[in-house]
């Protein structure tokens, strides 16, 4: 692929401005993992079903396997690497993570819900987490972790 077929763009990544050149068919997921050295975001299914590759795009969860890299021009992307320890300590105690492959996506969705607690009133916690498949926990550990993160005692 010659360089003139690449698209140059700039976007905000984890609080910093980055400039990249991408192929038209590059996925955001691959840009993050293989070009920008941020392997925390995982590929689970490659078709937007499992949510393992969830990032926050302009503050909203998005499957980075479905987003062409060129579409992030001018946008703000947060990946799991932007996570603070304080964000996840309640999740650790709740048993939110087991094998860890779905975990980065789960954490990004949980951070979104924490930042928008009104969502929990409109949709239940299980509806809100339904875009993140997990094969280890049976979801109780994830729901308990989410509720601990937002400061709710138990599942409504």
């Amino acid at each position, binding site marked *: *692929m010659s360089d003139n077929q690449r698209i140059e763009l700039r976007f905000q990544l984890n609080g910093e401005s980055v400039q990249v050149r991408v192929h038209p068919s590059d996925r955001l997921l691959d840009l993050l*993992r293989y070009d920008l050295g941020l*392997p*925390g*975001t*995982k*590929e*689970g*299914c*490659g*078709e937007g*079903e*499992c949510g*393992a590759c969830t990032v926050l795009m302009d503050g909203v969860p998005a499957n980075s396997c479905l987003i062409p890299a060129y579409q992030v021009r001018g946008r703000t992307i947060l*990946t*799991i*690497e932007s*996570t603070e*320890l304080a964000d*996840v*300590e309640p*999740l*650790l*105690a*709740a*048993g*939110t*993570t*087991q*094998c*860890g*492959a*779905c*975990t*980065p996506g789960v*954490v990004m969705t949980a951070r979104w819900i924490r930042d928008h607690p009104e969502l929990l009133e409109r949709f*239940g*916690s*299980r*509806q809100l*987490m*339904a*875009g*993140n*498949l*997990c*094969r*280890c*926990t*049976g*979801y*109780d*550990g*994830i*729901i308990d972790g989410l509720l601990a993160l937002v400061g709710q005692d138990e*599942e409504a």
Partner: protein
Amino acid sequence: MKRLEGLDKLTGRELYIDDLPLEGHLWGMTVRCPIARGRVREIRFGEGTDWSQFVIVDHRDIPGPNELRLIETDMPVLVAEHARYCHEAVLLLAHPSRRQLRHAVREVQVLMDPEEPVFDFTCAPRPEQIQHGQDNVLERLRIVKGDVEAALAAAPHVIEGVYETGAQEHLYLENNGMVAWTEGDTVVVKGSLQCPYYVLNSLTWALERDDARVRVIQAPTGGGFGGKEDYPSLLALHAALLALKAGRPVKMIYDRDEDMAATPKRHPSWVRHRTGVDESGKLLAQDIEVILDGGAYVTLTPVVLSRAIIHAAGPYACDNVRIAGRAMLTNTVPYGAFRGFGAPQTQFANERHMDVIAHTLGIEPAELRRINLLRDGQSTSTGQVIEGGTDRQAILQTALESSEYDDRRTAHTAFNTSHPYLRRGIGLATFYHGAGFTGSGEVYLKSKVRVAGLPDGKIEVQTANTEIGQGAITVFTEIAAAHLGLPTNDVLVAEPDTHRVPNSGPTVASRTAMVVGRLVERACDDLRARLGVDSGTSDGELQRAIVEWHERGQGPLVGEALYEPPPGIVWDEKNYRGDAYGTFAWAAYVAEVEVDLRSYTARVTDFVAVQEIGRVLNPTLALGQIQGGVVQAIGWALTEECQLRDGAMANNQLTNYIIPTAADVPPVRVVFLENPYPYGARGCKGIGELPMDGPAPAVANAIAEALGIEPHAIPLTPPRLMELMTP
């Protein structure tokens, strides 16, 4: 204690095989057989590709035998002439660009002369379908206790039923992945895997190398469930063959569709029961026939069949039992290890059949189980006398009370007569799971564990058992720290690396905490003995002794333990008589369902899981094992269906292979009734597989009650429920 690697996983810092930095590597991919059975006529390379840029490996590049060494060696590493399943590996390609590699794989055509495949594992094969022995039977096993024919002839009632379960995909969230490279004369493979020494065993065989020149390292692994028990041996060989030929590191990471199409799944099963009972419901005779679909090669099927038949009669007392099991070859992906390893299939049949018996006799399902549950002093189908003081009646009673079983049933009856389209039901299953390898398996494994005292006074636990999400690192740390009286941060757990850790056996069969954990304790004892420090010493004395050992320059300080069976365990492998397992975990599960008759969709609305697993080592981890297993089994019961077309999985993607989401399942309410097992680490028993056994029959029994039908096969998808409900 909290999961030790938990914060790394929660912040994305845990590096899995595709995340680890690797300089100058090639990507590797696989060219696969396009049909279920046939002979390779020609391999055609497309003209538009410069093939000189690719590393190409076929069966002629294998230094040793073209055999994957597992139990047998019937499966090739790469197809040489005959292929037995669609997506069987024929050719390997490597290239620096993954994009060009993906394109190139599609440019290779494998032209086949088709041969007659076999897909139905319940029928005898036609002569042209024979591919294994005289009859395609991969394994045949039998258990006989008492005189079944006489007891059936004399029984007041004989109740029959046939039950079937489908294949299930593991759906670990991290696909299979492996990296291979060479270091001097040594081939190194590192990847997502459960059993480093299984991989080593396959590599030394097909590469014709000794253990010293092959090194296997486990990378952090994103789930296994049995799916990374045997398959990584094949993938490691593929990566190693490419790396040897390329002279550079090669990374092979499967996409989801490839992982689902080409790797093992849970064995489909067909089980027939003929059961003699008296008027009260007491079991007089159990005549059970078990057939498993083994897929295209032997792989682990004989051992799965073994566990399947040993669990087939359930946790009940019966003097006359005959269980005939066989596993058949079919031209599909070889079926393999999956959490429960045959026991979920046969206990689905048995627990569904118990409800059919109850309905036939007009006895309450719970009462039928109360009458027949094993009591201490009675024996299982293999004649293993159950001891240990577990109160199985109390487990059942706790499950009934926690689920408000009786009140809910009454409420459902009223609800179901008044609601226009919703139907509710509650169902029960009582079951057991033998922990550790079956029969003499643990003795043959000769598992070994080492505990090293390090110069700074810390200790390192060295085992080949892997963290795959279940919490092995955390549990080993807790076991060693508790046993030696050390703070947990003075205990390290070594990376599973066959050049560093001894062979403590595979990470399978719910054996890691119970069997290997006990070896960790004994290796700790040995370490203390070498230092001359007894167990009653004060804090800090052990660590001072370790430091002084090293200050005196006495060399490496290592405590070691080798597996010894618990006393009194006797297993007759030839006749399948005796103590099949050191111990069993026991459980009673209750599921409540609601079926929507407009869409024939069943959902689980409440779930109670009560079990005795010895002593609970770590409450959060134990809870996670049960809840995760229950939900995986609910998926198997309701939605997970491998749709095979000409032997190949047609729905090999998450869009149409449906596993439960958070919104599909209720909270799983878990109760542990503890009864420490003296030969497990800190009193524990195996836990990982138990929760896979009970949910499917409990859910199916609940649906039976909700709809007044007798479902005989899972998954109970909407089309299947519609069929059952449509006269």
